[in-house]
């Protein structure tokens, strides 16, 4: 049977059910915490109950005598050897980084910081032994409020090695950059100026699989299994941090139960487990509890956004001035300082703003460190701009959609270079918006709203808009370099056609739920003309996939997917030479279609890829000088980011007497370029919407005045359940990316980025007749009720 009859249809664009499901639905999984190794020790970590304190004494000796305990150490035991956890994004030359020990030595700077570690035969024994550790703290003043932290004479988070709580100030000014006008001019010449403060509350990524790491000493090195998003970067960073030659570190990310940015950093637990395994010469496992996870895995968002927009009376926006305070927490994590900087490029969103200034101060507080969380900087930016566009519309007495239409980049203007200097390759904001308005029945809803306002219905209807774009792919490397990011933005792939014609693909983009195996298989199946089932995707192990930059920022498809295409194309070129040799034809006379080379004009004369692979394997009859085997590598560094966009609309019923808000309809039309697997796209959008709506309505990490996390379990940190969310209507428009051969963009973060402002805009819209101009997130019934009572907040 030939490949042609095996697969008559194109794979790309098909809602293929996922390859990766079988073992997950049957429970045959490889979560890190499932690992059991001979002689393996379990670790338990004693964590600081104080937000800020000196450790005046610590005695772990009694713990060492507890049943099953093999070792107990305090931070002192690692003082010389532990190094500092890496921060790979020094956003300014003078950024202050006080260093980040994996286990505190003399001082703790947030609740939950590790202070001692016990290794025992069982986890329960290790945990029991923690109780025997004696430790005295001398409290230091807590630093919780960012503005107070920056005031003169403020108590310092790191009194020994910093002179203020400011880590950095990062500035972008379109006048200075030469990408637009001066903000001063926009301010002085403005017909209308509007200033707002928005609060991006602290969120907790809350992947469902708690973090887990197992480290096996192996010779001079280590084999690390970790529930991480970044096996490749972790390998390099562990080598640098712990001082092991990089080639002696192997990192495996087996099944990983979600990440959302929360499994990006090199964590204290990964480093500490590595240190313990090396010191004890035994495999060690650490798995966090959920409360440890909520307290110590990094948090996201937590910014104060002061925004000023300037405009003409006709609604033409003339400038945007943004000042952020970004809470870094107690330490700088892997990419934490860069999160607001990524956002800096998204405040102008889909609009043609002539002038733009962005200033961000990164601030230390005695709280859990922050780092990337789904969207990383872009949800915050989109929120601010979409909220203030609504407020500007209200100020001008304009319809908020009209204001957007007046300012956005029109379809015929692409490619368009923004006031930040980014060039958007393609997009069609009109098409996505028109489709969304039609799907939700906007005009009828507006009529209903007017009618309910008229009759003073206690349940008011609010209509919210969010039009957005984002930057995905996080590359080219050169651009990341210009932002002082410590790594590139490329991705690697290998494609191997085996002797039997089956295909192995190695990717550096390791997945944690996104469906890479399926989507990548579809791409390869089409490119090589082989059956979908004949493609296997290998990822998540630095030994079998030695090169890569992992998965974050919706980069897998638009960077990793293209690396695969490049490798596959090289394989096809090699195969073409073999085919020409076997068919005794000229390469130029060959056509490659549906997995087979044939001589143009004589279709009877053909050879299938599988036959070529076998010939390349036996190497009995290859062109002179050709290396045997049919495979190739590629590394792809994109020429540009990709810019998915969309329009999200929300209709919400707000009970003005109780403050209860219930989403009645949520419609989104996303444009993610060419779809590879529509089913996976829809799933990604759904999950993203749930997280973005949760920021608007449910989630917030709260600290009390002593710096304790009061939302430290799933009882208090409200993840939405099925009954908290509606069903969504999703649809697509397609503006293929013109910067990559598949025309793809990226979808993982779209739902989260767009939905938060859509929902808040809807609630504010419902309450505008009551004088309400903002409701702080999460918009709990109490906050909404207070807003109704108090008018503008």
């Amino acid at each position, binding site marked *: 049977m030939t490949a042609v009859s095996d697969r008559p249809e194109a794979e790309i664009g098909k809602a293929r059910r996922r390859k990766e499901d079988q073992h997950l*639905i049957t429970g045959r999984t490889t979560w890190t915490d499932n690992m059991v190794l001979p002689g393996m020790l379990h670790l338990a970590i004693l964590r600081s109950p104080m937000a800020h304190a000196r450790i005046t004494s610590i005695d772990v000796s009694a713990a060492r005598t507890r049943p099953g305990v093999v070792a107990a150490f305090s931070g002192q035991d690692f003082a010389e050897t532990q190094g500092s956890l890496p921060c790979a994004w020094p956003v300014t030359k003078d950024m202050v980084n006080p260093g980040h020990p994996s286990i505190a030595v003399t001082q703790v700077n947030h609740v939950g910081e590790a202070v001692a570690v016990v290794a025992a035969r069982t986890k329960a024994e290790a945990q029991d032994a923690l109780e025997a550790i004696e430790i005295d703290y001398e409290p230091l003043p807590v630093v919780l409020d960012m503005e107070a932290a920056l005031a003169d004479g403020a108590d310092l988070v790191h009194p020994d090695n910093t002179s203020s709580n400011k880590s950095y100030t990062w500035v972008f000014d379109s006048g200075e950059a030469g990408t637009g006008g001066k903000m001063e001019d926009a301010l002085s010449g403005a017909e209308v100026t509007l200033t707002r403060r928005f609060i991006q509350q602290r969120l907790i990524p809350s992947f*469902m699989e708690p973090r887990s790491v197992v480290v096996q000493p192996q010779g001079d090195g280590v084999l690390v299994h970790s529930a991480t998003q970044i096996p490749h970067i972790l390998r390099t960073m562990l080598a640098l941090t712990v001082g092991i030659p990089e080639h002696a570190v192997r990192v495996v990310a087996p099944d990983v*139960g979600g990440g959302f940015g929360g499994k990006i950093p090199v964590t204290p637990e990964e480093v500490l487990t590595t240190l313990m395994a090396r010191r004890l010469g035994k495999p060690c496992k650490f798995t966090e509890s959920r409360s440890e996870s909520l307290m110590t895995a990094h948090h996201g968002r937590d910014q104060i956004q002061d925004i000023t927009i300037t405009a003409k009376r006709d609604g033409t926006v003339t400038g945007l001035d943004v000042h952020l305070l970004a809470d870094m927490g107690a330490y700088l994590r892997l990419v934490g300082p860069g999160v607001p900087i990524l956002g800096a490029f998204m405040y102008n969103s889909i609009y043609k703003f002539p002038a733009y200034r962005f200033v961000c101060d990164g601030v230390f507080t005695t709280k859990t460190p922050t780092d990337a969380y789904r969207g990383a900087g872009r949800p915050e930016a989109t929120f601010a701009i979409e909220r203030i566009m609504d407020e500007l519309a209200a100020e001008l007495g304009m319809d908020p959609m009209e204001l957007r239409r007046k300012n956005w980049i029109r379809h015929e203007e692409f490619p368009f270079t923004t006031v930040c200097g980014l060039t958007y390759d393609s997009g069609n904001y009109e098409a996505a918006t028109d489709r969304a308005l039609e799907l939700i029945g906007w005009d009828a809803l507006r009529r209903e709203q007017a009618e309910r306002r008229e009759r003073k219905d206690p349940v008011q209807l609010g209509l919210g808009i969010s039009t957005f774009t984002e930057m995905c792919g996080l590359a080219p490397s050169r651009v990341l370099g210009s932002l002082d990011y410590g790594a590139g933005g490329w991705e690697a792939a290998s494609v191997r056609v085996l002797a039997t014609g089956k295909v192995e693909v190695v990717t550096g983009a390791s997945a944690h739920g996104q469906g890479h195996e399926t989507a990548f298989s579809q791409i390869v199946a089409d490119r090589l003309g082989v059956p979908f089932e004949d493609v296997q995707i290998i990822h998540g192990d630095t030994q079998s996939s030695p090169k890569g930059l992992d998965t974050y920022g919706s980069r897998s498809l638009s960077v990793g997917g293209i690396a695969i295409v490049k490798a596959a194309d090289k394989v096809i070129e090699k195969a073409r030479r073999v085919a020409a040799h076997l068919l005794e034809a000229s390469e130029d006379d060959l056509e490659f279609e549906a997995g087979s080379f044939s001589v143009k004009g004589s279709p009877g004369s053909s050879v299938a890829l599988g036959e070529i692979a076998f010939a390349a394997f036996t190497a009995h009859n290859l062109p002179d000088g050709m290396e045997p085997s049919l495979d190739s590598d590629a590394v792809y560094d994109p020429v540009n980011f990709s810019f998915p966009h969309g329009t999200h609309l929300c209709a919400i019923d707000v009970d003005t007497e109780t403050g209860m808000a219930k989403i009645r309809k949520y419609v989104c039309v996303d444009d993610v370029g060419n779809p590879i697997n529509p089913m996976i796209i829809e799933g990604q959008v759904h999950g993203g919407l749930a997280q973005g709506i949760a920021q608007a309505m449910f989630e917030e990490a709260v600290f009390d005045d002593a710096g304790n996390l009061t939302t430290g379990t799933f009882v208090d940190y409200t993840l939405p359940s*099925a009954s908290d969310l509606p069903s969504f209507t999703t649809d697509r428009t397609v503006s293929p990316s013109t910067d990559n051969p598949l025309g793809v963009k990226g979808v993982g973060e779209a739902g989260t980025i767009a939905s938060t402002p859509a929902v808040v805009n809807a609630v504010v819209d419902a309450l505008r007749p009551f004088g309400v101009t903002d409701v702080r997130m999460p918009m709990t019934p109490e906050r909404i009720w207070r807003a109704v009572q108090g008018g503008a907040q």
Partner: protein
Amino acid sequence: MTKINVTVDGVSYHDDVEPRTLLVHYLREQVGKVGTVVGCDTSNCGACTVDLDGLSVKSCTVLAVQADGSEVTTVEGLAGTDGLDPMQQAFHDNHALQCGFCTPGMIMAARDLLRHNPHPSEEEIREGIEGNLCRCTGYQNIVRAVQAAAGAAAGAAAGAGAAS
């Protein structure tokens, strides 16, 4: 240590357990049923849901000694040689999982829901699985999967009725 007799996925086990051992830890660490997972320490996430004598329970809320003499079914006991359980199939068909960590518990809870209410409305499904958290899917496809499984069961029942 206390002796217990438990049947898990059709195989009987005679084991010594510490009195404080939770059923989920017994299943994972002593029996090796690692398909059932732990997602929280406050019985909020539902990732550990199993069937205990025909009742759906969060296995982190039950002591192993309480399961003495009982029959436990975990997600690993669902698929037989004749293929997937209809709920597993429905999850696959409807893309009701992404990372898959919540999935074993979700499948067990969803099966239990249909046992008690074979034809649930969307709202009833959402309420029925609200003790199980999923961070990836936004639940919509899980709801679809449960509807599909209910439909399949109804179809099978109708087919059986016609045949008899």
